């Protein structure tokens, strides 16, 4: 289509000038920030129409998310699973796939972690934690790789396929948690058997934030190195850029697509393990909290850049964390943060059209 033809040629042989890189970076930073500012304005109008004071709303969001060390800890606690579920969108996106099944990988990962943690109870805590992480990552990786495989081998659209797999995963999760794997002692809230207190993932030293945040940041750094600084990562980006060219160059397209889906799924599965082993202590309906969907938003705002995911996840986690204070103080429904996120998502997507438009950001040779 004509839109594709208008893209600047990417594969220049000359080394890009340093100032060109700065211009690129400025474009990549200013356009999303501008879109976020516009969405804040639109949300402010929405709030105003409903008869509330937008300034007060934003003050409360700030207060609930970032003002005190308690708020920060709450925010970081929520950012940890978002970082991991966002990777589940961002890594397959490098191969040109729009996978939105992180929620399914998260609940299955959580279930696998809870089961393995209970089966191994009594062993050394570190071994149990490793086994839980491994089980969760395997479950998540297999689930998202299934969506990638259906895409590659059967041509099933991966966006629809991965979302259908999410619904199936939640049905499986409910079946097992309320049926064969239910702890008879969990009366009001069906849960699996709890894992040992000693095997729980603890908090970072001196903070009220669990280790899941570190898992997420390390996973992001690893993905950044993988995508930017390895041969496999380069091949992955070629597949995402032009699958036909990748085939002609003899790249193993199927393995790259399945591999990227598996890495993303492993991240989302690990998010489930973190939620089970650091927060809930067993697998129950609290796992289905929409982290997978918020992760899609995080990945798109970060433009599928693993390093940008961390600050964006903290921002979105902060907005989520402020939901309860908005409810208490201004009597706004808990879906308020969903509306803000939805508006931000649409603004970010509409802003895609601005890339490559402003002269200021273009390399001087072009």
């Amino acid at each position, binding site marked *: 289509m004509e839109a594709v033809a208008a893209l600047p040629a990417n594969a220049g042989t000359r080394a890009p000038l340093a100032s060109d890189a700065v211009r690129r970076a400025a474009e990549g930073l200013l356009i999303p920030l501008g879109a976020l500012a516009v969405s804040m304005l639109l949300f402010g109008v929405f709030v105003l129409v409903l008869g509330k004071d937008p300034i007060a709303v934003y003050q409360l969001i700030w207060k609930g998310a970032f003002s005190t060390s308690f708020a920060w800890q709450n925010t970081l606690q929520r950012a940890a699973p978002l970082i991991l579920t966002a990777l589940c969108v961002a890594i397959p996106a490098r191969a040109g796939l729009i996978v939105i099944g992180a929620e399914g990988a998260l609940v299955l990962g959580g279930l696998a972690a809870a089961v393995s943690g209970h089966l191994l109870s009594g062993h050394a805590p570190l071994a149990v934690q490793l086994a839980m992480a491994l089980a969760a990552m395997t479950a998540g990786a297999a689930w998202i790789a299934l969506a990638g495989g259906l895409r590659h081998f059967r041509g099933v659209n991966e966006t629809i396929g991965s979302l259908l797999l999410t619904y199936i995963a939640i049905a499986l999760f409910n079946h097992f948690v309320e049926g064969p794997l239910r702890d008879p002692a969990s009366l009001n809230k069906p849960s699996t058997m709890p894992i040992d207190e000693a095997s729980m993932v603890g908090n970072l030293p001196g903070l009220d934030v669990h280790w899941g945040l570190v898992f997420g940041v390390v996973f992001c750094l690893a993905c950044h190195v993988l995508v930017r600084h390895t041969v496999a990562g380069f091949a992955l980006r070629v597949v995402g850029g032009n699958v036909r060219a990748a085939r002609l160059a003899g790249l193993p397209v199927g393995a790259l697509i399945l591999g990227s889906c598996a890495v993303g799924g492993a991240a989302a599965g690990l998010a489930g393990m973190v939620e089970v082993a650091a927060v809930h202590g067993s697998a129950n309906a609290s796992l289905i909290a929409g982290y997978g969907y918020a992760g899609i938003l995080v990945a798109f705002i970060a433009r599928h850049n693993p390093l940008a995911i961390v600050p964006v996840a903290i921002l979105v986690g902060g907005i989520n964390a402020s939901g309860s204070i908005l409810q208490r103080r201004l009597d706004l429904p808990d879906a308020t943060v969903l509306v803000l996120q*939805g508006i931000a998502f649409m603004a970010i997507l509409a802003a895609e059209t601005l890339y490559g438009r402003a002269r200021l950001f273009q390399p001087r040779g072009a």
Partner: protein
Amino acid sequence: MESEALGWYGVPIAVLGGAIRVSTPFLFVSLGECLTERSGRINLGLEGVLVMGAMSGYAVSFLTGNAWVGVLVAGLAGMALGLLHGLVCSLPRVSDIAVGIGLMLLGTGLAFFLGKPYVQPKAPTLPALHLGDWSASPQIQAALQINVLFLAGIALAIAMAWAFRATRWGLIVRMVGDSADAARAMGYPVAAVRTLCTAAGGFLAGVGGSFLSLYYPGSWNEGLSSGQGLMAVALVIFARWRPLACFWAALLFGGAGAIGPALQSVGVTGGYYLFNAAPYVLTLAIMIFTSSPNRTLAGAPGELSVTR
């Protein structure tokens, strides 16, 4: 409970009745999506539009006391969201798939936000036509309670099939969907036609949503829709973008959705969640069997990004 008198024979009757009840939202959403996709764009956000339609229809029905006004407003709300999708996608280099995901989140968020006060109150719902009164069996009577919207959906499917084939408007939509270059050469505004088709598709999806809250299950809560909007998108691919095939596919999906409750009514309670997952598994199975990695699908609009 309903099927006690007939025992196991009640299951197929309950599935048939359920298919008619459950299929109506599928039918409306898939017809709307069919129109949108025929014009060359895909709107994955109809799940959000459906939920928004369900909420606004229920709220307006409660406020005005007239369920039909609710249906109309649900359609208009859906149209507004469809218009938003169409306009954002008209910007160059914006992916319609990504905007659909955004619309899904925005629509459900807005519906949960605005619908909070209407979870408790009881709104007037749509009346049913009792077509089964000739039978003495209460099961058959229950199965043949048909809503007017179901009949309207059938009429709409027939009208759309005719319009695509035999009218000037239908030809313009198909041409825009099959080759934007050809349409541009003929002097038709491609983006405007697509935006209108997306808005009209949003209207139909909103009406489908109002059926959920105003007839069956007939109340508004945040768990009302469980992916019907998304399944309808897959259903259009299965129906090969033909409105009449959309009708049969919607009946099939409705039947799959009715298996769980029907089996529960004869006392099969084990695996309740697994039976409820039947529509998703069916959708996925159909997509696996009808898609192919090597060729584009027969009947697919040439400009559609999802099949390329």
